[in-house]
């Protein structure tokens, strides 16, 4: 039955997340201005906090369910800060998701407990993974893979204990030749070259790796399939699976921050006497109310596409199209919303004494990583037009 109201439990969990977010927010500016530091795994205040799972307990049929609620929790956390969280669990890196998606049972057991980063992008390839240049060559004598190449934009790259790395066994084979390898930081020739300096999410650990004759045991190839399937893009599909769950999630990251910008703007404008009440038509309101309300509608619209993608996966329905819709919509919405809030706040909005300018910078990554808005639209268009990559490039 179609329903858009929250259960008591839903609300209770989100209220708790808000209390965590308010603590994290105290640290937001510090780690933005001091990007060389890493936020601690646990904030001092966290000691006495029960944590979301404890508060959630067992969800009942009247609650919104783990995936949908998970999206609201995610947005609730970034509402506080993107990079600073009350607690950072282990084994929650993007690399862990990749391991879970394509690793063997034994591999999962062995490395699942480590914090793993995901190293895909290279200086020469952005959204096109088939351009991967990092190579893995098998040394028959030692039964080791010898990996060479460069990776950039590696999330949690500095702090990770190991990385899941995309490398090709045969460049001429294109996508089909790409395999995922687990490489521990301890492997010889694994070099963390630098931490990226970014527009936003500065406190976030984003690294660049270099692999110089980096040697790893033969069994470090995820899934273990060494042969290159002919014709089809082969194992690449599995590799791509990793993304299907993360698109609505990344949109939710951004929307938590754009919501924060809206809430701050409303608070300031109302304190200054601006009436933002809903109801009147265009001729019953101020320019500020008109613009603010349009931004709030955009926020709501984008968040609902995220919840729809989540609800589908929660109910075991295919959501590849809807995941891309939520990512495309969210990526654009957060840009427009944070830009618009600054229009409304004026000079105050661009001062670093407030967090709005930071949210404006932090959300900008939303439309870029995990597939840009352009990539998402390609996926959407191909789906609704029933086209393959050959027909729509």
């Amino acid at each position, binding site marked *: *039955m*179609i*329903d*858009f*109201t*929250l*259960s008591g439990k*839903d609300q209770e969990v989100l209220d708790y997340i808000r209390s965590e977010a308010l603590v994290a927010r105290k640290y937001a500016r510090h780690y933005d201005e001091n990007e060389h530091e890493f936020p601690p795994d646990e904030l001092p205040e966290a000691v006495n906090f029960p944590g979301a799972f404890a508060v959630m307990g067992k969800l009942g*049929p*009247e*609650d*919104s*369910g783990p995936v*949908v609620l998970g999206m609201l929790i995610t947005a609730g956390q970034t509402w506080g800060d993107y990079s600073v969280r009350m607690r950072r669990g282990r084994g929650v890196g993007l690399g862990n998701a990749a391991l879970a998606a394509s690793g063997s049972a034994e591999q999962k057991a062995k490395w699942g407990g480590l914090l793993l980063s995901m190293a895909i992008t290279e200086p020469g390839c952005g959204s096109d993974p088939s351009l991967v240049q990092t190579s893995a060559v098998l040394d028959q004598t030692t039964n080791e893979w010898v990996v060479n190449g460069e990776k950039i934009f590696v999330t949690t790259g500095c702090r990770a204990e190991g990385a899941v790395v995309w490398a090709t066994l045969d460049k001429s084979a294109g996508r089909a030749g790409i395999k995922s390898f687990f490489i521990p930081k301890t492997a010889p020739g694994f070099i963390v070259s630098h931490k990226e300096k970014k527009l936003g999410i500065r406190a976030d650990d984003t690294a660049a790796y270099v692999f110089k004759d980096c040697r790893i045991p033969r069994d470090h190839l995820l899934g273990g399939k060494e042969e290159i399937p002919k014709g089809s893009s082969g194992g690449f599909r599995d590799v791509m699976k990793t993304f299907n769950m993360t698109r609505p999630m990344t949109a939710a990251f951004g929307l938590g921050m754009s919501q924060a910008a809206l809430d701050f703007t409303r608070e300031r404008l109302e304190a200054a006497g601006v009436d933002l009440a*809903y*109801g*009147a*038509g*265009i*001729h*019953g309101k101020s320019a500020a109310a008109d613009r603010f*309300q*349009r931004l*709030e*509608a*955009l926020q*709501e*619209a*984008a968040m*609902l*596409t995220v*919840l*729809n993608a989540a*609800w*589908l996966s929660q*109910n075991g329905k295919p959501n590849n199209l*809807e995941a891309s*819709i939520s990512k*495309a*919509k969210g990526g654009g919405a957060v840009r427009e919303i944070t830009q618009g809030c600054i229009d409304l706040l004026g000079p105050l909005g661009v001062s670093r004494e407030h967090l709005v300018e930071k949210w404006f910078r932090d959300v900008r990554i939303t439309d870029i990583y995990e597939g840009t808005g*352009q990539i998402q*639209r*390609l996926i*959407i*268009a191909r789906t*609704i*037009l029933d*086209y393959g990559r050959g*027909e*729509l*490039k």
Partner: protein
Amino acid sequence: MISFGPSEEQELIRNSLRDFAARVLRPAARAADEASELPAGFLDQSWELGLTATQLPAALGGGGEARSPVTNALVLEELAGGDAALALAATAPSAFAFAIADHGTAEQQKRLLPRYCGSRFASGAIAWVEPSPVFDPIALATVAEAKGDKFLLSGKKRFVVMGDRADELLVIARNASSAVGGFAALDAFVVPRGAAGLTIGEREKLLGLKALPAVSLTLDRVEVPAANRLGGERGIDARRLLASSRAASGALLTGLARAVMEFAIPYAKDRHAFGEAIAQKQAIAFNLADMRIETDAMRWLVWKAASFLEHGRDATREAHQAFGYAAERAVKISDDGVQVLGGHGFIREHPVEMWYRHARTLSVLDTVAAL
């Protein structure tokens, strides 16, 4: 609990109305628009769907099912997918009857609703819009003055949907006695067609929705008994009345936008230029992708507002968003639809130019329907 899943019954209703829209509304739409007339027999045919009676009390002859704004959102989207003008005509009785059911006293319901449970099309109309270039639905010029056990209504109304044949009108007015303005000052009065001082003006000539009869009204100290003040002493919940109406327009606009998208996609695959289907051009393909993104977003906003109404919660904000967002996007999508067809989009052989007119017209009318 947040859920995007229609009930099985809602799925059935949706499918049967999608079929009705495709069989009855879509084929008749263009001729009706060119003739500025409803297709002969259309009202009786759509009446048989029982859209109004189903959700009226069994005791009064209705279907006795619970009022469901969510179900009605599904209904309106499907009908508008066939044609928005005909969808509004077919559901005009619901707009009147649901207002009585939601806001009327037991006596008023008993007196007014049975007609809407009968086997023949019953016409009621809502008079809300006024002839002002700065019209605002919660700041009305039409006033109701209490006079003993009567009210005197004076003012001008425009775009009264189906007002040409309505036996009774629900006139929204500002209560002269109300100190505060805004929602709190709004009242609704049932005015019989024959009332002294009520003049039904000529038929409105519109940009779009041409097939839909709409008229202007003049009320010159029209006397109505206090018993006709909807809700009696306590009056109406004006926030709910407006929210229901705005969300309904949002649902219609969603169906309209979806029709454009579903027409443009096969057209763009079929149409070739510069050696390939125009759908293979990123500019066109991304445009179609945006149509899909936005029709989804429009629908969810409408459903959220409908869900709030169904739970009896204040939906002022949600309905405002649902209508405002849908209005902007429906105009954009139908405009882009014309562009996808190019010169053919400008010609009245194809429905897209009509949908562009429908969208631009409906998107300034947020007080003509109901969930």
